[in-house]
């Protein structure tokens, strides 16, 4: 099995530690099978979400060409995976290649849970953790039950972390409200975006969280920006980082 690791552009540039944690996890569960193809860059989401289809096309073409040879493509980002899986139609000329790539592209937690079907790993993470449900992971990829739907509850991300000793989930009042990032929304609708972010943080703080975690670093980038500006006592960590820290596979 060959697993192609996709590290979204903003993680590559700003949060290499999340990329490293993801790689360590994948190498732990699929030793010797993980590759990071260097011709990758970006899934094209920033352009596509702004309506600029033609500007998104080259990025999408590059993604498909880069990752087609792999058996699985894994990324630590629900929104990028959702982009590839749900919004590439019309962006990529070779439809057969596209369908193939779409079918084997997975978000990290989804890959561990559904493809590798690992049991939640043992370890230790003695902290009060607030889970930020990133919207694309939740409602596009269905990594968990959204609060609007009337179906049996499940949560793949929480389950993955559930065997870490000492971890305690805190429960915000609004289980899965959006953090307000939304890509260029964060810039063009700055007022609403920041209000949403602060509300999210306050909700998690009221619930007693020390660590805020999510499967999408983009939400956390926005929340962390607000947290640091206001010097709130909250640490943000990507789920991959929590797992790696908990399992003690961080390496040197």
């Amino acid at each position, binding site marked *: 099995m060959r697993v192609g690791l996709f590290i979204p552009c903003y993680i590559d540039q700003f949060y290499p530690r999340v990329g490293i944690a993801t790689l360590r996890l994948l190498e732990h569960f699929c030793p010797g099978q993980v590759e990071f193809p260097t011709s990758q860059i970006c899934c094209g989401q920033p352009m596509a979400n702004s309506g600029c289809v033609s500007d998104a096309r080259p990025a999408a073409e590059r993604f498909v060409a880069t990752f087609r040879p792999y058996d699985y493509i894994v990324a630590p980002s629900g929104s990028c995976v959702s982009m590839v899986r749900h919004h590439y139609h019309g962006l990529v000329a070779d439809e057969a290649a596209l369908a193939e790539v779409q079918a084997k592209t997975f978000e990290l937690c989804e890959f561990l849970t559904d493809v590798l079907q690992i049991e939640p790993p043992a370890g230790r993470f003695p902290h009060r953790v607030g889970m930020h449900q990133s919207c694309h992971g939740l409602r596009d990829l269905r990594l968990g039950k959204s609060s609007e739907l009337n179906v049996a509850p499940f949560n793949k991300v929480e389950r993955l972390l559930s065997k870490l000793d000492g971890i305690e989930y805190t429960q915000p009042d609004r289980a899965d409200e959006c953090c307000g990032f*939304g890509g260029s929304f964060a810039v063009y609708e700055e007022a609403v975006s920041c209000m949403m972010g602060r509300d999210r943080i306050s909700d998690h703080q009221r619930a007693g969280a020390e660590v805020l975690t999510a499967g999408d670093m983009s939400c956390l980038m926005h929340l962390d920006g607000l947290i640091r500006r206001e010097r709130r006592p909250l640490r943000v960590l990507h789920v991959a980082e929590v797992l790696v820290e908990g399992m003690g596979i961080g390496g040197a």
Partner: protein
Amino acid sequence: MKTFDHPTAAAEFVADDAHAHWHDQALWFIRAKRDKASQTLPEWEVLRERAAAIKQHTISHLGDYLEEFERNATRLGAVVHWARDAAEHNAIVHGLLRERGVRRMVKSKSMLTEECGLNPYLEQQGIEVTDTDLGEWIVQLRREHPSHIVLPAIHIKKEEVGELFHRELGTDEGATDPTYLTEAARHRLREKFLQAEAGLTGVNFGIAETGGFVVCTNEGNSDLGTSLPKLHIASMGIEKLVPRLDDLGVFLRLLARSATGQPITAYSTHYHGPRPGCELHIVLVDNGRTKLLASDDFRNSLRCIRCGACLNTCPVYRRSGGHSYAASVAGPIGSIVNPSRDAAKYHTLPFACTLCGSCGDVCPVKIDLPNQLLTWRQRIAELGLLEPSKRRLMGVAGKLLSSPRLYAFAGSAGRTVLRWAPRWLLYNRFNPWGRQRELPTPPDESFRQWHARRGRGGKS
């Protein structure tokens, strides 16, 4: 026409932080009630499925069902009129009133007349129109528009209503007790009901099979408004149809639960033809709906039953207020239907959204709202209506994010600048990210640099 700009209007709303939070909480309270109410029905998701299917079927045979409805309504003694647009609708209503010498009309439950601008039009013709839904009447007294399709005065606090009623109705100064204020309103509205020579209502559901229709209210005002005067005009969007009487149960169960968390609205009044000695006129209004019908991308937005659940759940709507959408239908569904009427005016609405998807999951008729919002963004870009700054930015981003050399260069240059630049250079009014937020702390090397180093035998 003036171009409306959601971000600016939203920023104004958000600037009053206490009020914006109060607004957010009030709507969240309703969303929470909706969750509870929907959870009382184990078959909730099945109902949604069913409702979506019925509506989809109806709109794909809309012409047939409209004719069937017209036939049956006429058979029951109603007069059916067809209006291509808002102007025709208003002219038909005015004609009916003029021919009968009506000077005063009461109205209830009609966002469609709001969409058509009926009130100002009739007032210009010297006809007094009174909105009898308490919330709608409040906004009418304030010379404003509803800010929500189900809760028209949700943006107004009871203190403000107290002041308004003190001014307009002579209630005690400083009175804020809802019961007292409602009582005062009831008295004044009673007079209006008694004086009215015509009553206009909206339509929640038209039934093709019978030619009847249903109006749902919580205040019983439509019943009063249609029982006293001899003339009843019903304004109905052509998408309001369901095929059979049997279908109605599905929608009545979904509507109130989705809208307010009630099991059912207090009054679901059925109208089948005029009362003896009275007249019933039904105006079927297109006003852009056939344009949606013709569009593969946006057709299924015609399933909408105007429950308002997508507004209540929308984190942007809750914090920016309905008026920031500058249209009779606000929120997610408004951001889809308004641009089809005037893309230039409403070009910022599909972007007033983080694509969180909550609207799609809450919608009782399963409209794929987030998807359509995304599609609208593409249409707006194609129409050349994107802000030039965004257009340029995405052009640059597109180039940068598809060329490895450019990307690597810009990445390290960017991180270097971020690391060394003085704060004033990074945090100024040209950087909307940095007004309220810190930028990410740039690491020394990117992931790919780390990875390359590691590959060359570097320690990781």
